[in-house]
């Protein structure tokens, strides 16, 4: 099927330069970034992605300086460069910032830049959500990192084990609160990015890009975003319990009142271990894009990479207890986790072999990105091998909390993440700035980093086996690890110098250098359609893709894209538009209008951030004020920017194709986003339920025989009211669609009241039976589940009110009911949450 046969007779003549110039002017105007101070209202992936990347690297450099301070302190025995307490802050913040402010956000940042380019999309489906995530990240990150300048940083290690962190006598001050609240806030941003990236990968692919033709990066993004959705929420659940203990003395982790500090370790590592793969997979995804280009051949074993990505994604959730081998769990439990830890080596190894095979069967061009890729593979394999060692329980008992583990984790993270990312910087820099980075500096940077890293961290295996404990600010000379530490410290500076060379290469002024030629590495995938320097519209026309490497395999491809011979070559309505396609085959379904610049995401992030920051310092009135402002700003944002009714039903998108501009229900991307968000929300809820049943398993009597709350009556009343609210959501959607608008409005109004009453009766149960949450872990657990559900009920009530207002102001009609279908979807999850909570709190104790 050639493009020519698809042209309708009245289509614009794309071979006419005048026509094209007009189209380009319109596209440029529509997609232009705002000027002056309004620049910061930009939401387009090119701007937000670059800010995100730059800030993540800023935090990385900050955390790197902390690492060098530690190495100075450890260079000689019995050193006093840093005090013990300040050293505690430094290593805690180093780990925290590297993991939460660099490793995970950089994935989101890079994916926000690259994913739309790789998918030939103009932007991701929810640009304002990306911007919101970015501002949350900046505010939370500055808050957490800034604390060290006030000598108030968290100081109990990046995994914050209680009771060290829950007792004021051990860790006085605000450190743990800053960690918990600052990072919870950033986790919200990560989940927002995950929603954006999943919907982007599944629904924003170019026409014709079937699942088997998707770039491997897309597969990895899909898997990693899915992992974020199931890994971060348990930590949010853990943070809630933790903060309730710190602020209100609810004894979740206090054994004297029935709590258990090990529960925190479970919740933390259910997040923490998958997180290692959340960090590793996106970086290896860059490798999967780089290798075919320099091997000059398609990847060998595409399906095997998909196996590796999906397989790792699953199995990585079965490893968390291997961080807890020394907590005294029964051997049989440790055995399960040890087995899974060994099994995950299979898919991880498969992708390494795929890369090697691709290189062996291609004609490899040696270049700076390939240099970093080779260094990455070598380093990662060493880290992987020590990983197989520490996955074995008896070995881990010896090596736990020593420098052996420090060496292992840095080999994995630097080999599996930093080196691939550096390869990515050199490879993708032309897309960002239109110019190539220097080969000479790149080689210098690589060798400094590679040699510096290995000489710094290899001796730590020895120091660790010789008995040097991690996280201790000094060591005695008699331990005999002085020489090894001196070598590590010197080489750490060499490694840092190497990284600074990259920073210099990126930042040095270069306006006199010519732009790179288009597709400078002669790659085959869509992101290299980008012009040098890039245009803000991303792709000149949205192409039809029929191969995995269209630039290599589809004749005349770049020219057809440039001449606008594919979809959406114009912005006739002066609106930002992109295509929505089907999941399996990439068939065009909708022309999506994406929102343009707005300050609302920034305000929403500022007010939401204020809630967390004020809560840290117990400024309750200010916290509540910020909560109200945050809610208002989110509602204003949604009201003005989402579910806009278009002026016409359908629009011609080029090549004779007409697509609808508005879709609701499962056809709409908003419905998908709600579904995915609520999956994450349900996972956090499951984390709390896990807490309840965890206490049930560790106590012989749980609930304690003397307790009567929360009773059966009030929870049952709440269940019935929640069921009624759920039914009103469904009936409201149904009657609105059937054009019974009056009935629908009555049902929405009823929903507002029913959900509030349901929430109130759920809270009344534990209140009226006198459950005191600070007395014992049982009442605390009951309260936290009831509050979680009641808050969701209140949010559901606001949603009903929002839909009612939209209906009354005619922004929602029988034919245009995105809002109401999404709210009905929310209520499915709400009903599930209410049912589970009440079944657990009221009916489960009766059955045991």
């Amino acid at each position: 099927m050639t493009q020519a046969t698809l042209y309708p007779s009245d289509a614009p003549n794309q071979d006419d330069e005048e026509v094209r110039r007009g189209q380009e002017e319109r596209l440029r105007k529509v997609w232009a970034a705002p000027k002056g101070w309004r620049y910061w209202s930009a939401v387009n992936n090119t701007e937000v992605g670059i800010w995100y990347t730059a800030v993540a690297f800023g935090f990385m450099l900050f955390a790197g300086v902390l690492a060098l301070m530690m190495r100075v302190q450890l260079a000689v025995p019995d050193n006093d460069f840093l005090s013990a307490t300040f050293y505690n802050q430094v290593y805690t913040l180093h780990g925290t910032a590297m993991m939460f402010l660099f490793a995970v956000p950089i994935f989101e940042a890079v994916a926000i830049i690259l994913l739309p380019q790789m998918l030939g999309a103009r932007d991701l489906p929810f640009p304002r959500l990306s911007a919101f995530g970015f501002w949350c990240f900046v505010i939370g990150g500055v808050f957490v990192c800034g604390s060290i300048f006030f000598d108030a940083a968290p100081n109990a290690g990046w995994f914050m084990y209680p009771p060290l962190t829950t007792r004021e006598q051990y860790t006085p001050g605000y450190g743990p609160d800053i960690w918990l609240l600052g990072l919870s806030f950033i986790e919200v941003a990560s989940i927002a990015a995950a929603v954006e990236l999943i919907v982007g990968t599944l629904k924003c692919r170019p026409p014709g890009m079937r699942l088997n033709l998707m770039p491997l990066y897309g597969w990895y993004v899909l898997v990693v975003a899915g992992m974020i959705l199931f890994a971060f929420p348990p930590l949010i659940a853990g943070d809630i319990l933790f903060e309730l203990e710190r602020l209100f003395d609810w004894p979740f982790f206090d054994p004297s009142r029935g709590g258990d500090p090990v529960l925190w370790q479970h919740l933390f590592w259910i997040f923490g271990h998958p997180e290692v793969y959340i960090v590793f997979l996106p970086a290896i995804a860059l490798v999967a894009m780089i290798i075919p280009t320099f091997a000059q051949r398609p990847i060998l074993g595409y399906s095997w990479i998909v196996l590796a990505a999906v397989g790792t994604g699953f199995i990585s959730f079965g490893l968390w207890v291997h961080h807890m081998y020394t907590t005294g769990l029964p051997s049989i439990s440790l055995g399960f986790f040890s087995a899974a830890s060994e099994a995950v080596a299979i898919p991880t190894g498969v992708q390494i072999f795929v890369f090697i095979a691709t290189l062996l069967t291609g004609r490899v061009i040696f270049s700076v990105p390939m240099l970093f890729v080779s260094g990455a593979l070598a380093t990662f394999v060493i880290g992987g091998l020590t990983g197989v060692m520490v996955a074995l329980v008896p070995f881990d008992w010896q090596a736990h909390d020593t420098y052996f583990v420090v060496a292992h984790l840095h080999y994995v993270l630097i080999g599996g993440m930093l080196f691939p990312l550096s390869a990515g910087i050199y490879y993708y820099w032309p897309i960002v700035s239109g110019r190539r980075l220097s080969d000479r500096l790149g080689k210098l940077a690589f060798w400094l980093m590679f040699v510096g890293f290995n000489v710094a961290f290899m001796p730590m295996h020895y120091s660790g086996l010789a008995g040097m404990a991690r996280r201790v600010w000094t060591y005695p000379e008699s331990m005999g690890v002085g020489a090894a530490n001196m070598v590590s410290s010197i080489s750490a500076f060499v490694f840092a110098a190497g990284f600074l060379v990259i920073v210099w290469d990126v930042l040095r002024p270069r306006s006199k250098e010519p732009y790179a030629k288009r597709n400078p590495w002669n790659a085959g995938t869509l992101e290299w359609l980008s012009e040098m320097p890039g245009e803000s519209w991303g792709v000149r026309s949205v192409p039809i893709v029929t191969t995995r490497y269209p630039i290599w395999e589809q004749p005349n491809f770049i020219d057809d894209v440039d001449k606008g011979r594919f979809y959406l070559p114009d912005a006739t309505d002066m609106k930002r538009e992109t295509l929505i396609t089907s999941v399996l085959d990439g068939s065009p379904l909708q022309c999506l209008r994406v929102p343009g610049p707005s300050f609302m995401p920034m305000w929403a992030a500022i007010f939401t951030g204020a809630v967390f920051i004020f809560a840290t310092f117990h400024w309750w009135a200010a916290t509540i004020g910020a909560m109200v402002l945050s809610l208002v700003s989110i509602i204003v944002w949604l009201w003005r920017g989402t579910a806009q009714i278009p002026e016409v039903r359908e629009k011609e998108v080029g090549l004779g194709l007409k697509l609808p501009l508005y879709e609701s229900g499962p056809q709409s991307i908003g419905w998908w986003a709600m579904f995915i968000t609520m999956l994450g929300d349900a996972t956090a809820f499951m984390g709390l339920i896990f807490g309840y049943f965890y206490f049930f398993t560790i106590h012989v009597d749980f609930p304690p025989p003397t307790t009567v709350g929360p009773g059966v009556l009030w929870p049952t009343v709440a269940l019935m009211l929640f069921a009624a609210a759920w039914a009103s959501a469904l009936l409201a959607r149904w009657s609105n669609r059937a054009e019974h608008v009056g009935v629908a409005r009555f049902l929405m109004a009823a929903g507002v009241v029913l959900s509030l009453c349901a929430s109130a009766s759920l809270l009344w149960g534990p209140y009226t039976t006198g459950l005191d949450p600070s007395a014992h872990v049982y009442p605390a657990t009951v309260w936290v589940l009831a509050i979680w559900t009641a808050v969701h009920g209140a949010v559901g009530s606001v949603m009903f009110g929002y839909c009612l207002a939209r209906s009354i102001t005619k922004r929602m009609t029988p034919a245009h009911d995105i809002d109401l279908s999404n709210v009905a979807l929310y209520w499915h999850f709400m009903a599930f949450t209410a049912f589970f909570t009440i079944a657990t709190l009221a009916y489960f104790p009766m059955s045991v």
Partner: protein
Amino acid sequence: MQIFGKTQDNLWTLIAAPTIWAFHFLFCYFLAAYQCAPNADPFTRIGGTRLAIGVVTVVCLVLIGLIVRRSWREWRVDGGGTRNNQDTPEARERFLEFSTLLLAGLSFTAVIFETMPVLLIGDCR
């Protein structure tokens, strides 16, 4: 055993086998935790738990086996090639079937891995 004829593969069929692994894993973990976590009597034999895990393992392996069988057959019917980069629905099916097969193989192996501790450990120590 193709009751409904050839299945249309999608992302859910792709992750069915690892989901069974995940269920098996959680079942083993929770059952062992329920038996052993109160730490009341670490020397009690946990024969019942081991047996239950054994039964669930067999069920899971059979289920994954059925997925292997289905994806293998359909993949073979589609020509069985590992070349699946064409722009056709058949290539997409072939890709998904082959990837399902690989993931089912991995899940099968991982379930066996998960069961090994039960063969060796007989109490709650």
